[in-house]
């Protein structure tokens, strides 16, 4: 994990520089000239208190921000007008001040005016909105593609054509901090840190493909201006070209079950050279992982590794102590699967169970992790079957 304080300082500087450049851009932007005097004060105020959208680090996020501020000020303008008239009237046209009620009750021309003027304002807003939408929906001409798959409750990132793919989970440290105030308070990015960052190069047009393995998730990183639903059985797309290196955090935005609040997203944007170095390391790692399945493990090693895998992968449903949630997620302790035929146990972990939340972990975990976790489930959590599984058995069962 990168050092926390340096990261935050860095992104703060980035934000500052993007704000400055965007002022220049906005001043140039003639379509917004009439709002110019209004632009300065609120942005400075909002930036400090975390009350407004950030401008982000892509052209799309900046366009959205511009649109957001335009429509916001349009609303403020209308509000001042309408509420101003209302408040004036409430102060001066009250019976206690001796006001005598007028009797007018109709005017076609007034009705027409307050139908047509708002219509004109809406058209003025719809034009730039259309332009931004057309631009952000155009995912052509991508330099690279990352496929993002939502799982209950983690993300999988696959670098298409690179042979690199991995899962990204909320870190164990963060999970524990949900019930531990002391460790929570020391954290810079509570609930927003993952074990494996999505590393991306700056200056490249990146296409994201979103899909899901189970329920609907939604992949959202504000600074990138990307939020797109990940639907099971279908693929959506979005794109981003990140301008500034840095770390950008997001969260799942579509209710996806119990741990919906605990599947954050961390994007780490690096320079092209750093990205290539990282990519090379990942390829090495995946090779090493494949080689590990040939090794014969001792029971102690399997149990130690199994506990790690269990708590990161299985415990959110089946419970830290294997109790599950009655009626929703079955218990591990004393279950016919974890205490019965070992082949049936391997089968359900590898292939999942259709029509339930039980996923096919064969696609997610390595042979050795699967062997470890199955061994752990049979010999811990209140079970003591006594047998064990080797990675080679898993490899054969796939």
């Amino acid at each position, binding site marked *: 994990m990168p050092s926390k304080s340096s990261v935050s300082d860095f992104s703060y500087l980035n934000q500052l520089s993007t704000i400055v450049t965007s002022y220049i851009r906005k001043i140039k932007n003639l379509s917004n000239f009439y709002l110019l005097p209004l632009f300065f004060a609120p942005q400075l105020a909002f930036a400090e208190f975390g009350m407004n959208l950030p401008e982000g680090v892509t052209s799309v996020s900046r366009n959205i921000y511009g649109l957001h501020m335009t429509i916001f000020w349009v609303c403020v303008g209308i509000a001042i007008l*309408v509420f101003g008239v209302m408040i004036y009237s409430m102060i001066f*046209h009250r019976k206690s001040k001796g*006001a005598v009620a007028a009797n007018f009750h109709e005017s076609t021309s007034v009705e027409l005016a307050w139908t047509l003027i708002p219509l004109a304002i809406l058209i003025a*807003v719809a034009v730039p909105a259309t332009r931004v939408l057309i631009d952000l929906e155009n995912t052509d001409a991508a330099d690279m593609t990352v496929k993002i798959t939502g799982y209950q409750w983690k993300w999988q990132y696959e670098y298409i054509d690179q042979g690199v793919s991995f899962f990204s989970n909320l870190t164990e440290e963060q999970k524990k901090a949900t019930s531990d105030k002391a460790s929570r308070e020391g954290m810079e990015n509570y609930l927003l840190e993952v074990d494996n960052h999505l590393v991306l190069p700056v200056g490249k047009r990146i296409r994201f493909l979103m899909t899901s393995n189970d329920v609907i998730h*939604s992949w959202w990183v504000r600074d990138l201006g990307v939020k797109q639903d990940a639907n099971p*059985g279908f693929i959506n797309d979005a794109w981003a070209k990140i301008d500034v290196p840095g770390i950008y955090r997001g969260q799942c935005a579509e209710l996806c*079950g119990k741990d*919906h609040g605990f599947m954050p997203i961390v994007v780490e944007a690096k320079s092209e050279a750093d990205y290539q170095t990282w990519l090379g390391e990942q390829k090495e790692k995946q090779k090493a992982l494949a080689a590990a399945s040939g090794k014969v493990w001792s029971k102690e090693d399997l149990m130690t590794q199994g506990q790690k895998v269990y708590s990161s992968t299985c415990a959110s449903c089946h419970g830290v102590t294997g109790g599950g949630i009655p009626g*929703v997620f079955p218990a591990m302790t004393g279950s016919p699967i974890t205490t019965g035929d070992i082949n049936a146990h391997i089968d359900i972990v590898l292939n999942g169970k259709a029509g339930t939340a039980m996923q096919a972990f064969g696609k997610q975990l390595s042979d050795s992790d699967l062997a470890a976790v199955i061994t752990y489930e049979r010999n811990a959590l209140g079970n003591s079957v006594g047998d064990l599984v080797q990675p080679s058995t898993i490899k054969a069962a796939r």
Partner: protein
Amino acid sequence: MSTTTTDLQDEIDTLEGSHDDHHHGPEKGLMRWVKTTNHKDIGTLYIWFAFSMLLIGGAMAMVIRAELFMPGIQLVDPQFFNQMTTLHGLIMVFGAIMPAFVGLANWQIPLMIGAKDMALPRMNNWSFWILPFAGMMLISTLFMEGGGPAFGWTFYAPLSTTFAPDSTDFFIFAVHMLGFSSIMGAINVIATIMNMRAPDMKYMDMPLFVWTWLITAFLLIAAMPVLAGAVTMMLTDRNFGTSFFDAAGGGDPVMFQHIFWFFGHPEVYIMILPAFGVVSQIIPTFARKPLFGYSSMVYATASIALLSFVVWAHHMFLTGMPIAGQLYFMYATIMISVPTGVKVFNWVTTMWRGSMTFETPMLWAVAFVILFTIGGFSGLMLGIAPADIQYHDTYFVVAHFHYVLVTGALFSIIAAVFYWLPKWCGNMYNEKLAKIHFWWAVISVNVLFFPQHFLGLAGMPRRIPDYSLQFADFNMISSIGGFAFGASFILLTYIIVDCIRNGKPVKEDRVWDSAKGLEWTVATPAPYHTFDNPPSKKVILEESSHIGEH
């Protein structure tokens, strides 16, 4: 037409031997409420049912705000948290807001159009008595193995099908029953308004509350069967092996959202159009000036209703809709702000150069106009498809729909209760306490919901039980506002019970000096049977003079 129906009803009553005397009072004891076919009794039942559901749904909101008071998981586990958000939404929408408006319709529509009763009194009884059973069934899911529905009030598949607890089938049955009840209530409203109006009352003589309810009833009849279809498809997906919403079997989870929102968007107007009606009654009364632009109000309501059926997918900009779809739904959606704006401008102009007093109903109505408009502004922002990328499924949305549903729909219901309660029970409420309650509620509700705009823009997703530390301050402020707003309902309960039991009797038929409308021509408290003889043309014209057509 209406005379014929009235005669027919008399004949039925005579044949059934229950109508010996035109002026008999209510039956005594519990059976009065079980067997009643009287629109006033049924209205009362609806309103008390809605109020008790409001308190239950509100208690769930308190659990939510308590858990979100500070970062970390303190009180409830995430699964139970999800059950709370889900049931809070369902109970407030289907148990509190909708039945409250049906209760107001039951009490007021016959009184406002000079009818003896609702057109279909026995169906009226049934449409009410389905509700408590549906409500109880929904709440009972909390105590079942696996807990209650935990997939949000929008219950998107496949979280609500393949991945849902067993109790979901009870949820489906409860939604079906709530739908039956709503459809029967809507049929009754339409039949009553079309057939039971005083013979000399033309459509354009009708008070705005009656107009908005007529239009709402059509929305209900069109929208509720779609919801029934959606939950039935869920039921067969869950239990009979179909795959409407499962891509593995050729279905599509996004289709669920299309069907749900084809119901869901008209549904939000079902909850706000009668509110427009209420406010259009109250503001002219206390501004002592006719409603500005009566006919444009009617046309604006009808336009909003029609548009509400063609904008549903603005809830789905991020589902992967083609760009043409997104553009169309964006244009159609922001278009709704035109007729909505017309309504707000008309209310403001009604107040302009009036002679205003600010009794409690007026305070609530004015708060409605201001705060609903704020909800309308955030709605306009959400309608801009590219900007919605950053707002969607964040607390900005939570703030938006609570401004339109709490400070919109709920505030108008409270306004309506204070406005008509003296007519219903014959006693005046305690004005001083009611004003204290108003300021308490209106300040706390803004402390509760306004910071949620900032939370959403700062990046907090909705429906999460725990959050990153940067959201801590606003969440704590919001929770404090929430507890204060929740507590204000204890005072409201006291004010209302105190009014009914010990309130100072009101002598005047016209409770508010400048109120117009047929409901103010009957005695105070409204007798058990009113308008045995329809009001004369002269009275109708006098009482609709606030409309400004005469």
